[in-house]
């Protein structure tokens, strides 16, 4: 079982790869809309990749209103 810190780090890594931002430039508290410059659809695409990676299903409404990596990690952790 992953710890919340591990989950968070994996999310940051995946987002770094997907949106081609410099390694180490993302932090758990970052607002991913702002930091990655993405819109709500791109955020949904990121969620799909995270679901595949963590082998979980996240209902759309559970991640509605979530905009930082830390909270996203908590929602994912609850389903691991």
């Amino acid at each position, binding site marked *: 079982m992953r710890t919340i810190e591990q989950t968070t780090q994996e999310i940051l890594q995946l987002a770094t790869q997907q949106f081609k931002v410099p390694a180490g430039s993302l932090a758990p508290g970052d607002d991913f809309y702002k930091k990655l410059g993405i*819109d*709500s659809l791109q955020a*949904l695409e990121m*969620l*799909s990749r995270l679901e595949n990676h963590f082998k979980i299903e996240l209902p*759309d409404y*559970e991640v509605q*209103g979530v905009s*930082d990596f830390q909270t996203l990690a908590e929602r994912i952790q609850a389903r691991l």
Partner: protein
Amino acid sequence: MLDLRKYSSVGEALHDALETWPREVCLIESDRGEEKQRLTYRNFKDQALPLAKALQDLGVGPGDRVSIIMTNQSKWLISAYAIFFCGATLVPLDYKLKPEEHWQLLKHSGAKILITEFGIWRQLGASRGRTAATNFQAVLATEAPANADMAGAVRWEEARGAQAPVFVPQGRQDIACIVYSSGTGGTPKGCMMTHENYLEQCMALTSLYPFWPGVRYLSILPTNHAIDFMVGFFGPFTCGAAVVHLRTLRPEYVREAFPKYEITYVSLVPLVLKNLQKGLQARFDELPASKRKALEAVRNINRALTKDHPRLWLSRKLLGEVHTAFGGKLEAIIVGGAFTEPQTLQFFYDLGIPVANGYGLTEAGTAVTVNDLKPFRADTVGKPLPGMEVEIRNPDADGIGEVTVRSKTVMAGYLNEPELTAETIVNGWLRTGDMGRFDSSGNLQLFGRKKNMIVTEEGKNVYAEDVEQAFEGLRVKEFCVFAANYVWPQRSMVNEKLILVIHLEPGQAFSDELKAEIGVRNSRLINYKRVHGLVVYHEDFPLTASLKIKRNELAQRLGAQDREQSILPI
């Protein structure tokens, strides 16, 4: 389709629809590419009537309000029909709101029953806002796991009365729905929509974009939204058509649904349409140069041949691959909720995919004008629908003035807000707050707003006042949030932004600490409600006798300053 002129309520028309097309499919539900459910009109009725009886056993009848908070799915529509069957008023709420906002609107609406999904109920139950709504009598929650703690809710699947329910008729002027167009932070704007509003709007829209048995509408916009309620429920049902619901709205599943279900119509907000455009363009750009040139040539031929009106059969032949990706049966993409840039509309039209763009607002009963495609005009929002009187009030030298609407589709008013209603509907004319003019061919063109609000590309209405509570307690003398275009009017409806105006205490410096605090508070807002600029104003705000900010006057004073120099980035 049913002849809606002879019906007096939404429930009565739906009742007849279920009897008229018992064997036709009305709902298909898919989750992550897997079909979960397919219902005929008869199946729909078999599920709805026991629920209607259960509601009647709970005492639901005329004058009662029942709220639905659900994602787009079959149980949404089944529950809505059961509510109308009882003669009650439906309060559809956006499932995307925060739990506290849900509770606030549930309280405001006076709903006594809530029908929701178990996952949403779990979040609502844990919210501190729960104590706010005391008017509640029962909660029905769908899809709860077998051993779930229901926290006081009843399982939707078990809410089934044994006997047949009694249909309760309603009149055309009775309230069918209370639809919140905005206002979770400030004044809740609960639009009271009558049965007549829906019946008339449905007749007008289907006269231009008809449904028939066999049509498949892909429902993506939330069903609480006036557009999806009309074209993703009432419209198709009164014509014997089918609605396709996807439980997961990830782009990959949406793309897959078009060919899989041979979709006929879909409604999208501009953001999604632009995203589709981006995806298609990227695929075109990847083509080898020779193929790209060939595509461009075919596109030009299609453009020339569809100049006067769409010729779908021809476009499907010329641009087969593109149309196959959309399932080959797409009649039109309906785009609404916000202003769409002409170049995006033209992009799709040139590929032979008509985009039915228009202009509307919940208060007017959804659509006011729609492009009739004869010919397609990307630079306008089309002509008024049948039954709509549209006038431009107080036009300036260029003919641009406020768009006003008179029609049987205009709402009865805002719930519990007689003053706001009186300001909005004057002598039977709805003042939209949007600025526009008609061109020589009778098409409406829009040129910004006179309201202190923005509409995002996702179709979200954000009123500046509603955002202010995020900055309550900010250590400044006073502050105010404005739509930048309200202060500095622009003849444009794209890239609308909110700004925060602050006035510092005497001797207070605009410190990094204050700037950071504004940033933190701003980031707590959901992304589309955030302010995008800051103005430091150096004079006292004009106030009323009761010490409220005179927003109009402050906006005028700010407007005298240079826009670019005044706004600092956040």
